[in-house]
């Protein structure tokens, strides 16, 4: 299991590949991953960039605990969370969650758990810069479920 905090852009496929190479080939049959990417719009406004603030020591601890809970609560082999901080531009990945397991059900469920848990527990805060150069803090997350 691993937690990554990146102050600069990262390539999710590279992180996935590097982590998977540390696992025993043939020991897992399912890999589920989610990538969250910065949009250039929010709440009807054009967004030109975003700054992600965090509480570094608590972020590391909370993300590690979320991964440990996923391994305890789901039948999975391993999990990973990567998250950007600092200034982010539209199109750049913000977050990556990934899970490896024997079968797809646990992989899908645990990957969803990682995202929803970090969205509600990990101390990150987004501040958007709009096209008129004004700035505003994002006050709440969008719902995690469509229904």
């Amino acid at each position, binding site marked *: 299991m691993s937690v990554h905090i990146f102050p600069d852009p990262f390539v999710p496929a590279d992180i996935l590949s590097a982590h998977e190479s540390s696992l025993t080939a043939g020991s897992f049959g399912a890999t589920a991953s989610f990538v969250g990417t910065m949009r250039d719009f929010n709440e009807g406004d054009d967004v030109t960039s975003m700054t992600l603030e965090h509480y570094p020591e608590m972020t590391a601890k909370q993300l590690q605990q979320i991964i440990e809970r996923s391994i305890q609560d789901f039948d999975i082999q391993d999990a990973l969370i990567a998250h950007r901080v600092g200034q982010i531009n539209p199109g750049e990945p913000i977050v990556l969650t990934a899970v490896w397991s024997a079968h797809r059900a646990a992989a899908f469920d645990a990957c969803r758990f990682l995202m929803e848990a970090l969205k509600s527990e990990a*101390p990150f*805060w987004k501040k958007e810069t709009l096209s008129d150069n004004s700035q505003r803090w994002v006050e709440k997350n969008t719902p995690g479920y469509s229904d």
Partner: protein
Amino acid sequence: MAVYSPLVTTKGTISTLMTIKAKFFATLRESLNIEQVDVNSDEVANVTDVWRVATAGEPMPDHVLCSVNLEHMPADTVVKDGDEIAFFPPVTGG
């Protein structure tokens, strides 16, 4: 903006004992203009007291979240010397 500095006792000596560290993030850091301050632990019993002393009596907004030593905790949590308390708005990562 306030930043960390060791407490100075009435005898003029620098002390790092009997203090609780209070941190503020995001909107709270900006609106209060406080990033981090030390609070004398003799003056506080719980997290709410730390807010009161650290902010010189500013009312705590309803939405504020608290942590004690990097764990989410309610505002009535008892605090002790050496604790690190943080105050922040709802998180919006991911």
